[in-house]
């Protein structure tokens, strides 16, 4: 069950959708070796790939008690949309899909494996497909209701899916990357708001069945179906008006929105129309949830450390600060877990003489020093890498891109030897840093030192926080080393190899997500070939292709996988880490008032 379907990967573009990363997701963060021994790095990065199409509700937790208010703190802004169709960030996704909005499928935390498992939600199973994965049929279950008491109908689910094709109205949503490219006629249909008279061909309804037709095979659709965008939206135009609905999306889940101020707060109270028997994963023990966004990181940490009053039922889902890690860990209220992201240095292939530069760089990067300098904790939220794809991706086999190079190993002498042998001693590495971010400056200092010790000529190029991403993504910018991070939307090699290594038209679209400007027609052909393979052969094929690219050309130098370290109050029970998103497992949380 586990590998079967996720193995079939045809997706070509997966978007990094991480609010929790904060900022541009580009801060120079290195990795380090001497992590605390309390962290299980083996399971930490496992990003989940199981499925269970037969799971039934209701779900209960032995000994769990109902009641209490859970406060969620975060230093990031909650400024991204919560309209289900426009929602594509990990924090809003985790909270809204776990507590408020239901979709066709959902993830549930599996205690035994520590992974997330894909289970049905509004659909009765994980969908039925035709032979070439171009038509998916979901049966909508009975008994699911809106917060108004009206039943959730197949028509409303179909409308929600249609709505996701309106990229102009919902520019933040995942529809642009999956609905439009994959759905039949999705490239032409502009959506129900932008083109009210247009005819869409993708979504149809047959009784209580929703049928989605694809323009090309989409075997990963059940994963995509877990996004809030693949859920119901009321068909009444007065209710689903995008501007209005974004302020107050209607609930189908266990909680409904009582109050919502963008960028500031969200209060969720019980939705008594939700029937646990219809839900295979959500438990909903607490009476209410309050999200408070935008607080100071240090202050949020202090609330959790003090653990008094409301702090006892509080979760700070932004990572604990490095300086508070020891103290927080001693309280036993710190939960660590993985999130499916890899940070790497992309070497501009237009300027690289050969692979030796990347090999030397692999030895030269002061992984540990850089991670510490940028305020991350090696082995906790920056975990040693080997492959580009993080653990948990089906088919992934660990390998060393540079022979003999261990995780987080730095050896300037070896780097110098490689450069001397290849005649590139003194090769100039130009990289960006932001003068107004101390972590960026500190990380620049460590990298500069590491590069110079290894015999490179290092030229840091100054930028500012505000301009950093634009400067980095400028294809004509005078830099040849770009720091980049990538996260998978679901566990599949198809969201990694094509996105990072398929050539893009630099003049027309820029790097896209191929930040190393890697342009190799032979590899492009091999990527297309993998898509035509039988579904169960694709995972291994992706891994083999990644290994081939990395050992032959090495356009990127992996630095670390991300992890999360989330602190919770002493009365919070059942909190683990949802490692598909790097967020708490909100579906299983309850308050133990003693």
């Amino acid at each position: 069950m586990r590998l079967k379907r996720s193995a079939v990967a045809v997706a070509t573009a997966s978007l990094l959708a991480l609010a929790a990363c904060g900022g541009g997701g580009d801060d120079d963060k290195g990795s380090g070796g001497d992590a605390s021994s309390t962290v299980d790095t083996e399971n930490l990065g496992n990003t989940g790939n199981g499925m269970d199409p037969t799971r039934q509700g209701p779900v209960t937790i032995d000994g769990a008690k109902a009641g209490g208010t859970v406060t969620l703190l975060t230093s990031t802004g909650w400024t991204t949309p919560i309209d289900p169709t426009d929602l594509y960030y990990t924090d809003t996704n985790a909270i809204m899909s776990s507590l408020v909005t239901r979709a066709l499928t959902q993830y549930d935390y599996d205690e035994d494996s520590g992974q997330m498992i894909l289970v049905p939600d509004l659909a009765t199973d994980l969908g039925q497909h035709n032979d070439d994965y171009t038509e998916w049929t979901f049966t909508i279950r009975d008994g699911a209701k809106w917060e108004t008491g009206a039943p959730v109908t197949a028509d409303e689910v179909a409308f929600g899916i249609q709505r996701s094709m309106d990229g102009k109205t919902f520019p933040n949503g995942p529809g642009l990357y999956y609905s439009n490219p994959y759905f039949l006629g999705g490239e032409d249909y502009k959506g129900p708001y932008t083109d009210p008279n247009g005819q869409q061909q993708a979504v149809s309804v047959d009784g209580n069945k929703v049928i989605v037709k694809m323009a090309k095979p989409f075997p990963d659709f059940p994963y995509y179906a877990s996004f809030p965008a693949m859920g119901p939206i009321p068909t009444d135009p007065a209710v689903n008006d995008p501007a209005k609905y974004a302020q107050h999306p209607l609930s189908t889940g266990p909680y409904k929105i009582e109050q919502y101020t963008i960028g500031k707060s969200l209060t969720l109270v019980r939705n008594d129309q939700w029937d646990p028997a219809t839900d295979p994963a959500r438990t909903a023990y607490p009476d209410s949830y309050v999200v408070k966004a935008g607080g100071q990181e240090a202050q949020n940490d202090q609330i959790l450390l003090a653990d008094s009053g409301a702090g006892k039922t509080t979760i700070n889902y932004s990572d604990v600060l490095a300086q508070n890690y020891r103290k927080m860990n001693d309280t036993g209220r710190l939960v660590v877990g993985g999130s499916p992201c890899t940070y790497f240095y992309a070497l501009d292939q237009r300027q690289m003489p050969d692979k030796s530069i990347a090999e030397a760089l692999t030895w030269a990067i002061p992984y540990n020093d850089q991670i510490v300098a940028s305020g991350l904790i090696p082995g906790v939220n920056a975990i040693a890498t080997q492959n580009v794809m993080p653990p948990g991706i089906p088919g992934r086999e660990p390998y060393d891109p540079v022979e003999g190079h261990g995780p987080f190993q730095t050896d300037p002498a070896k780097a110098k030897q490689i450069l001397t042998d290849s005649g590139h001693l003194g090769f100039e590495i130009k990289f960006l840093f932001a003068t107004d971010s101390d972590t960026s400056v500190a990380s620049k200092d460590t990298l500069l030192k590491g590069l110079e010790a290894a015999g490179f000529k290092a030229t840091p190029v100054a930028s500012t926080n505000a301009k950093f991403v634009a400067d980095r993504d400028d294809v004509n910018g005078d830099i040849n080393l770009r720091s980049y991070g990538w996260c998978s939307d679901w566990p599949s090699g198809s969201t990694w190899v094509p996105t990072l290594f398929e050539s893009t038209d630099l003049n027309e679209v820029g790097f896209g997500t191929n930040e190393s400007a890697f342009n190799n027609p032979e590899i492009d052909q091999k990527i297309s070939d993998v898509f035509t393979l039988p579904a169960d052969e694709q995972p291994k094929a992706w891994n083999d292709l990644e290994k081939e690219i990395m050992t032959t050309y090495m356009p990127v130098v992996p630095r670390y996988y991300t992890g999360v370290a989330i602190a919770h109050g002493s009365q919070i029970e059942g909190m683990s880490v949802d490692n598909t998103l790097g967020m708490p497992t909100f579906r299983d949380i309850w308050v133990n008032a003693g």
Partner: protein
Amino acid sequence: MSLDARGEVFSDEQTPPLVHDEALEGTGTIKQIAGKSPTQIALSRLRHDKVAVTCSAVLVFLVLLALFAPLITRAFDIYWDISDPNAPEVSDVLDFDGYPKIGPPFHPFTWAHPLGVAPRLGYDNLAYLLYGLRTSLLVALAATIASTIIGVSLGLMAGFSRGWLDRVISFVTDVFLAFPYLLGMLALAPIIVSRFTTDLDALARAQLITLISILVLFGWMGLTRLIRGQVLSLREREFILAAEVIGVPTRKILFKELLPNLVAPIVVSISLYLPGFVAAEAGLSFLGLGLTGTPSLGKMVADATPYYADYGLYLWLPVGAITLLTLSLNLLGDSVRDAFDPRSRR
């Protein structure tokens, strides 16, 4: 006017304003202090002021520390910049969570790093403190000298010229007084960075020069107004009128007749400028608007605040240094003002 034996106290009722002195000397009414310039009087008063002597000693000590920073750091083999090729690796001095592996707060004192190591960044606190002190003093001194020169010249011109030049200078002074300098710095910082993207040494120099320029740009107005006011009243005095009548050139009147009478307000304003600029530099660097490639006490404060709970020493070092510097400059300034202003007494 009378002086006691130590030349310390003036009698109340007859104390003439300092500016009288030249005229008085001319009339020769005060025989016993003839030949003693007001500056000499002030210095002799300062020498007997315990606060002034203590503050001067502290300042000399701090200046010496700053001057000999390279020698001291070499003697201890410590570095303020971790990217220095001879500096230890970050991982040699820092634990996985950024706290130092040696020295405070979790380990005993070590001579290798007498004041500890900065968490997360790994530089030596003593070395950074010394170089930060250097920057502070350099910025404050340069800004003070420039502000004083500009302030005095404009004040002299405005006060003496009468008419349109006075009005223009006064208007410009008011405009600059009304402009918020923090806003100016906020706007300038990113522009400077984008101007010097690849040459980091040039960027560091540019930031230093910009910081000094900004401090000067928004610092000269007070002195200009003060000097203008003084000149306005002096201008009508007999000795100036006499000089004008006998045809002394304007330049000579300005520099030979007026300026010597303005020594007191200038010295006092210098003594107030110095600590003000030290604090302003620290404040701007704390906000990340000042210096990035140069060590600065303000930046050290900003680095240290997150660690206050566990590593208080790290924050107290720069805070203590700034306090000591500004406090002694201020107290010395107070004493200087007292010494130069015969109407004040202790």
